[in-house]
């Protein structure tokens, strides 16, 4: 196998965000060897950008909360196409996962009686998000990182996985390259956990970093695993829109949780004009009641601004289309107004939303304690991902696990804010636990030298291409523009058909993309390789979106605007066919057990 260095582990984890770190910690707890490969430096993964909090029914602020309420909130938010077993496990186990973080050194904001404080968030019935100001993700990743570095995990920073390797049907490891030297390394492992996050870079306007190129989705797909729910993309309602260079950067839902309101250019609090039927019982009748809710009034219902993200994003789009938008094509998000209600409002805002204050001050020249922000939807999260067993997180490829954003299940058609951080803790732990078990029960696989060589040869192709002078960035930008325009927040048949044709052309262009320079820390080369992943997930998103002829959660069809009962019974599963072409199949959702149905009924 050429002369590539080979690293052998019982468990290999790909991705070092919250899910990958939590999985690594769990797997290393039983003394097996764990390798952790990450694209960036440790502690820089996308988890760091999570702002609002971790959803867990700790019931520290409102004792009426419990796992059953959290479960039913998650199912309602996901429009009932979630994997109910994952939603159940998630709601049951999240509180223990949060308390564990405190035992590892995390310092959450406190209640007056010294417990972990919880805040309001969209779609959650009670204040449920454990948080640290608006930098919860940083606290989470740093806690896991600082705990994990003492667990004997072998960390490979700035390594990118090119392909998964198999031994017959089962997983055997991965081929990766180091960014720094541009050299290949072979990772041999009995079990592999994918924790690679999302796909946001398939879109032009996104809150995601360069890393979010659908790597885990594509690695799994190419290795024979299935993807599910790829039509469900979360467009977060509040991203920065101006100046252009900061377009897409996230503005936390915590702003609305702290009492921030959405206004159109007429000064109307437009969210109160359209409240979906299944949320009528849980939503404030007027802004005054909404404010009382934010202040902790237990008899008040939550403000319309805290409806689910899919709905808020569409309401914003509607205001803009109707000509009631802000100058740069968004709407206004105002937290400064609370000065009418509380003393010391500027200090309060800076204390509760310090990152937002600095972000707008330094990037937008706006002081959010005195003036409103301009915001609009931004591609934020993919609900779809690698199809896994709910309890073990193993895909249909033996030994291949997935957790966090790159796995599918708990979110259904729309994720509630705060559920991603608890998802990655709960299922990161489960993936680590079961990968460890699998590794202990199985002998070491053997590697196929030809497969390694073929993958390495493929990865080096961009250096050898003759003719054609197109660089990888041009193709990446063309893809992002196209997905934004044709498979974005509002979708329709003819546009998505055009996107499929466009994808076919882009695939051809990607095969000819040329890179210059040498292999050492060459971002052009890395972008050329990422194109395969971006194109694969874009095709899956487009094909699934075409097939689902209804509107639900993060998937909105202008030509099929209603939710259809028949579509509530199926998930769309994507896999690579024997001919190498992408297949999408409708798969019935398993019947929910009576006790869970009853919980949902009772919480209505």
């Amino acid at each position, binding site marked *: 196998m050429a002369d590539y260095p080979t690293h052998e582990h019982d468990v290999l984890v790909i991705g070092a965000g919250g899910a990958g770190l939590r999985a690594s910690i769990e797997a290393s707890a039983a003394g097996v060897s764990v390798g952790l490969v990450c694209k*960036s*430096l*440790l*502690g*820089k993964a*996308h988890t*760091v*950008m999570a702002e609002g909090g971790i959803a867990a029914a700790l019931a520290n602020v409102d004792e009426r909360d419990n796992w059953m309420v959290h479960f039913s909130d998650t199912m309602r938010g996901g429009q009932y196409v979630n994997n109910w077993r994952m939603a159940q496990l998630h709601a049951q186990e999240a509180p223990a996962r949060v*308390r564990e973080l*405190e*035992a*590892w*050194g995390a*310092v959450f*904001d*406190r209640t007056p009686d*010294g*417990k*972990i404080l919880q805040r309001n968030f969209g779609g959650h019935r009670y204040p449920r998000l454990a948080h*640290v*100001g608006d*930098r919860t*993700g940083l*606290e989470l990743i*740093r806690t896991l990182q*600082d*705990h994990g*570095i*003492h667990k004997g995990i072998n960390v490979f*920073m700035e390594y990118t996985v090119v392909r998964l390797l198999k031994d017959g049907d089962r997983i055997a490891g991965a081929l990766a390259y180091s960014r*720094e030297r541009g050299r290949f390394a072979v990772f041999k492992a009995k079990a592999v956990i994918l924790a690679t996050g999302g796909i946001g870079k398939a879109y032009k306007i996104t809150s995601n*970093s*360069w*890393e979010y190129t659908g790597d885990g989705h594509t690695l799994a797909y190419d290795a024979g695993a299935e993807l599910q729910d790829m039509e469900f993309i979360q467009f977060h309602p509040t991203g920065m829109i*101006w*100046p*252009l*260079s*900061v377009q897409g*950067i*996230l503005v936390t839902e915590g702003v609305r949780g702290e009492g921030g309101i959405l206004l159109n250019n007429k000064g109307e609090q437009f969210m109160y004009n359209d409240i979906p039927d299944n949320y009528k019982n849980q939503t404030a009748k007027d802004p005054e009641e909404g404010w009382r809710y934010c202040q902790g009034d237990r008899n008040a219902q939550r403000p319309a601004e805290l409806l689910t993200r899919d709905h808020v994003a569409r309401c914003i789009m509607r205001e803009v289309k109707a000509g009631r938008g802000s100058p740069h094509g968004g709407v206004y998000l105002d937290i400064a107004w609370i000065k009418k209600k509380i003393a010391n409002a500027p200090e309060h805002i800076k204390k509760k939303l*310090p*990152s937002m204050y600095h*972000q707008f001050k*330094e*990037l*937008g020249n706006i002081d959010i304690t005195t003036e409103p922000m301009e915001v609009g939807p931004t591609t934020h999260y993919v609900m779809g991902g690698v199809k896994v067993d709910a309890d073990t997180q193993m895909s249909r490829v033996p030994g291949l696990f997935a957790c966090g954003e790159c796995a599918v299940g708990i979110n259904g058609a729309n994720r509630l804010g705060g559920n991603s951080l608890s998802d990655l803790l709960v299922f990161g732990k489960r993936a680590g636990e079961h990968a460890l078990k699998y590794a202990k029960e199985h002998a070491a696989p053997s590697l196929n030298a030809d497969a390694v060589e073929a993958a390495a040869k493929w990865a080096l192709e961009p250096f050898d291409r003759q003719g054609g002078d197109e*660089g*990888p*960035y*041009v193709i990446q930008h063309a893809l992002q523009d196209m997905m934004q325009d044709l498979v974005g927040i509002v979708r329709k048949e003819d546009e998505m058909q055009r996107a499929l044709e466009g994808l076919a052309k882009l695939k051809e262009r990607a095969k000819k993309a040329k*890179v*210059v*320079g*040498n292999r*050492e*820390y*060459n*971002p*052009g080369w890395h972008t050329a390789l990422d194109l395969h992943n971006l194109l694969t997930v874009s095709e899956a998103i487009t094909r699934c979106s075409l097939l689902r002829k209804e509107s639900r959660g993060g998937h909105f069809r202008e030509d099929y605007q209603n939710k259809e009962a028949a579509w509530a019974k199926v998930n769309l599963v994507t896999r690579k066919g024997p001919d190498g072409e992408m297949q999408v199949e409708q798969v019935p959702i398993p019947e929910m057990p009576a006790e869970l149905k009853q919980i949902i009924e009772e919480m209505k």
Partner: protein
Amino acid sequence: MTATAETQGAQMVTLRIWRGDANGGKFEDYSTPVTHGMVVLDAVHQVQATQATDLAVRWNCKAGKCGSCSAEINGRPALMCMTQLAHVLTDQPIVIEPMQAFPTIKDLVTDVSWNYEVKKRIKPFQPRKPDAPDGTWRMDQVDVDRVQEFRKCIECFLCQDVCHVLRDHHKHEEFIGPRFLVYVAALEMHPLDTADRLEDLKDRDGIGYCNITKCCTKVCPEHITITDNAIIPLKERVVDEYYDPIMRLWRLFVPKRTALPMVSS
């Protein structure tokens, strides 16, 4: 390099970017159009996408939260994603170079692995027994405010870069630098922590090297009051523990404490 025809009319800026690797290199000039509100990282990306696809730059969040894109802009350590071009524009080219306190890998990317090694050596968090039967603790907000300030750190290592003990005197073997003094402070002032790191601070970590010039505080993008709130209190604790004659005498008669006096629970 000159402006291309299609960009004529737009306001242009010249970036003077250091290109090279561990064996050396030189500055190269790139001209690129400026748009309203653009940050330095945007301009670097524009150059990367159109003129120099192999230009190495480390970045992730582009929102000042991950601390990856640290560099020196016109000689000042800063995050490229949080520095507006408008704030560094002069009639001269904008000079962008890698951090000087760490070995260069390529172009704007440096080898910061030393920081990860240093952190591993520091005694980890060691909580006291839980306060409640359900295994949880109670802490008041006022008691965690200071620790939360330190935990804002995004590990951009700009404070390490600007610190003359590391940058000019290369005491990487004897001094852990401001970042890790903040890290130790966060652990030492954590209301639940029971470990003692004072001896390490004095001997191995070289806290005495810091002569409180406060350069680290000035460059911190998270506005952590590094010197006043973290380093000076740690220095005081070391002095109390090892150099105060009255305390020495006191300890002859009173057993060594297990928890530090400043923490309350």
